């Protein structure tokens, strides 16, 4: 227990006294430069841009769709491809530093491990932000040609998708702090999928009438984050009202879980031996 408190004290001292902002930004900026060059990123980005453009093509062919398809498909792209980037780059970031031993010189500087981890995390978030921004811009470019035009309320959905990406990134960092990249990818993806069906699971569990199943599904529902909080795509596509309060609640819900996973990740990472 004293080690945890020592870590926390060291962390807070670092945050308050050691010009941590400079260091944090230096690491984040460097991580951004590193990840923005990643080939995975380009492949995913090009693919999703083609898909969004293709949705417009569907309307043009008049296969019975309207501009709702563009919004729906674009938001789905931003979310799914964002998640893939968050997971597949997220799991490798810290692992690669250890594997390539670049971490030795960084952690031997006055940079605490929590600050290092946070810097890497923020760097990837910057890359994700650029990525989401590009896809959103492509979506609006396509929408501009439809009756819906530039509808800013869609940004509400994009905002929550980004919060979800922040959470998924934190989860992939958490898993990669103690397993191999492959295992971390599998766990993170499972987490993403379970997070979207956990509500349904709970409802089904209640209906099943079996006590043990009920407890299990409601246990999962209450412990793991319910990622449906971040999904307001249906409402936005159909132009249904979404209150600002609802959005803030979801965002806070996300930040709460991000804090938990970041905390767990630094607990593990701070104990690590770099061999």
């Amino acid at each position: 227990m004293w080690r945890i408190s020592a870590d926390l004290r060291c962390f807070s001292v670092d945050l308050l006294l050691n010009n941590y902002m400079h260091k944090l930004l230096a690491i984040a900026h460097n991580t951004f430069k590193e990840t923005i060059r990643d080939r995975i990123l380009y492949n995913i980005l090009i693919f999703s841009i083609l898909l969004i453009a293709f949705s417009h093509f569907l309307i043009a062919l008049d296969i019975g769709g309207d501009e709702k398809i563009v919004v729906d498909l674009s938001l789905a792209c931003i979310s799914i491809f964002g998640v893939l980037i968050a997971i597949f780059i997220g799991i490798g970031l810290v692992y690669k530093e250890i594997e390539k031993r670049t971490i030795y010189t960084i952690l031997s500087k006055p940079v605490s491990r929590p600050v290092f981890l946070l810097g890497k995390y923020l760097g990837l978030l910057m890359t994700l932000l650029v990525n989401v921004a590009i896809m959103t811009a492509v979506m609006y470019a396509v929408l501009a040609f439809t009756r819906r035009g530039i509808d800013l309320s869609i940004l509400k959905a994009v905002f929550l998708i980004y919060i979800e990406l922040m959470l998924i990134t934190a989860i992939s960092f958490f898993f990669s702090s103690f397993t191999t990249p492959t295992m971390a990818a599998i766990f993170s993806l499972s987490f993403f999928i379970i997070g979207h069906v956990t509500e349904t699971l709970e409802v089904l569990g209640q209906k099943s009438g079996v006590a043990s199943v009920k407890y299990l599904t409601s246990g999962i529902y209450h412990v793991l984050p319910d990622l449906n909080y971040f999904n307001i795509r249906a409402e936005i596509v159909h132009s249904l009202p979404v209150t600002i309060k609802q959005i803030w609640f979801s965002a806070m819900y996300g930040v709460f879980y991000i804090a938990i996973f970041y905390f767990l990740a630094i607990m593990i990472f701070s104990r690590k031996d770099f061999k």
Partner: protein
Amino acid sequence: MPAAIKIEGLNKIFRVGFWGRRFEAVKDLDFEVGAGELFGFLGPNGAGKTTTIKMIMGLLYPTRGQAWILGKNSRDVAIRARVGYLPESPYFYDHLKGAEFLDFYGKLFAIPAPKRRKKIGELLELVGITRAADLPLRKYSKGMLQRIGLAQALINDPELIVLDEPMTGLDPVGRREIRDIILKLKQEGKTVFFSTHILPDVEMICDRIAILNQGRLVNIGPLGSLLSPRVKYYEISFSGLAGEKLKDLSAWVSNILQDGALTRARVEKEDDKDRIISWILKEKGRVDSVLSHRESLEEYFLGQVDINNADKRG
């Protein structure tokens, strides 16, 4: 003034293999490095030098015992603002250019931009890679990486510099340059602690050395006190005497070597040396040289490691 490095009962056990077998890489190490010392950390491959250094830098946590740097526990992050470290065969972000790379490390110390720029210029000059400032590290040679590695260790003007084999991968010229830099750091009053295999470098510059073998400290002290000042043997080279005359000599000197016109005789005692010389002169031969051979660090090192290993087996 606290010791630059203080190591107390330091111990590291690794778990190896599937079954997690215990392997004790560093065993109850105790020693201190005083402020301003130039300290050589010696030991054969696998002795535990890198493991010890990583514990000093807080990259590995000791299984038992403690390491202190500049009076603070090695877990203390803030103290590293006053320390520089070059890891063994260092790896860096290879997408960065030389100057960018140093700039990044400067930022990790929150050094303000103008000061950073000035320092980077000086360091590139010091380690002799100014020309490669705009070259990505991916294109650096092994020796250049070693040099920029040393530069990053000095970016914060550290009081204590810890170098893990700073001379590996360098040609003789490079080795001399690094040696000169280390000496210069010492003159500036800094403490330098470095591990190495290259014994002549240690012999030339270190104030004190420690020898590590199989995780244990074998010996520690100033070079002069470790190496025996006693002459091991004398070697007398002479010419102008041959055949029968030499036979007389071999009656009381066992170690005689014929090398063309030159003859070499080795004796251990000073009396024997004097006797041979007067004999040569009496027989009208010519003495070309007399060398007294003292123990070298290399012999001492090999001797210590041998004794140590024999003890283990015996």
